[in-house]
């Protein structure tokens, strides 16, 4: 018995190269369910990605037109694609090191422009593929390859950052809350402006073993026990929210979309008789 969703994947390279228990596979699974339930033709999807473990989700596994770009530049490439092909679903799936670390500036400026991209940031809290170096999202005091005595820096709160930068849909969910994540992915794909979901994901190989959670299931149980709904955090102190995963919808607002504005200007000049 084969899974019907395998029709969306490049099956000749399965099973995936992800480590056993990796959260990237869960994101791929839920994304296939979302595409299937929204009845989107994969020909109408253009996937753009950068470098990292989670960049393997679109390239090579998900079978749509794919751009596998240089490190951190996924959103820059996707902006170009969306301007030329505004009727396609341009979806970026990449990791925290790619989108928030090296391509952080592209991320906040795409949110400011409110360009109609859908960005799924798979946050595994570390540079997993290159061997577990510290990333901008690594929590304080966590030992990594490059910070063997513990990370001295505080972590980036990416969902809050993108929400403040002006994106029209922002949410954060973990790979444990699969139904919420599926609903959020649907909303993000159907939303017209810049939609962003930070997906907290487990990385048993590079991150989990350094924080004493050697299997993927240990980190999933951590997500289950330490997640707090955004609505319940009002009035809570920062110390209480330390090492907690604040999940929920951070922003949903109506703003004019970048490519629409661009096209309106073009139309103004098209009307002038030559």
């Amino acid at each position, binding site marked *: *018995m*084969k*899974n*019907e*969703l*395998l029709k969306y*994947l490049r099956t000749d390279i*399965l*099973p*995936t190269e*992800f480590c*056993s*228990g*990796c*959260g*990237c*596979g*869960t994101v*791929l*699974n*839920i994304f*296939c*369910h979302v595409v299937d339930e929204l009845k989107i033709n994969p020909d109408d999807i253009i996937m753009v990605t950068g470098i990292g473990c989670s960049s393997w989700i679109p390239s090579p596994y998900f079978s749509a037109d794919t751009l596998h770009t240089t490190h951190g530049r996924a959103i820059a490439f996707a902006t170009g694609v969306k301007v030329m092909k505004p009727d396609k679903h341009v979806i970026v799936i990449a990791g925290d090191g790619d989108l928030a670390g090296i391509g952080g500036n592209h991320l906040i400026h795409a949110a400011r422009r409110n360009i109609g991209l859908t960005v799924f940031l798979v946050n595994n809290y570390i540079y997993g593929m290159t061997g577990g170096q510290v990333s901008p999202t690594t929590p304080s005091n966590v030992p990594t390859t490059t910070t063997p005595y513990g990370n001295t820096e505080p972590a980036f709160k990416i969902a809050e950052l993108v929400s403040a930068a002006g994106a029209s849909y922002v949410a954060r969910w973990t*790979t*444990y809350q*699969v*139904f919420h994540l*599926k609903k959020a992915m649907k909303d993000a794909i159907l939303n017209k402006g810049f939609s962003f979901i930070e997906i907290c994901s487990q990385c048993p190989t590079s991150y989990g073993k350094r924080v004493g959670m050697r*299997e*993927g*299931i240990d980190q*999933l*149980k951590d997500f289950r026990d330490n997640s707090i709904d955004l609505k319940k955090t009002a009035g809570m102190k920062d110390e209480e929210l330390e090492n907690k995963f604040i999940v929920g919808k951070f922003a949903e607002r109506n703003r004019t979309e970048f490519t629409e504005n661009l096209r309106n200007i073009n139309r103004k000049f098209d009307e002038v008789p030559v």
Partner: protein
Amino acid sequence: MIREKDKIEIYIDEGLCKGCDICIELCRPGVFVKSEKLNSRGYYVPVPASMNKCTGCMICELICPELAVIIKKNELVKEVV
């Protein structure tokens, strides 16, 4: 395997499974157990041992990182969920 009562079917794609045990641990009724059998890649795959406990919640199918768990339900059950 097919359950007669309401036709819930659970399949495990043994060629894809990597034995991460997420389905075994997260299934609240405890439908899956680890089998004694190795698959072609050397992992102990789960088997749906207690089919009657399955509530059809679909968590195992959605959370499986390898798309190896397949749940088939009739339309009536699907609507309720």
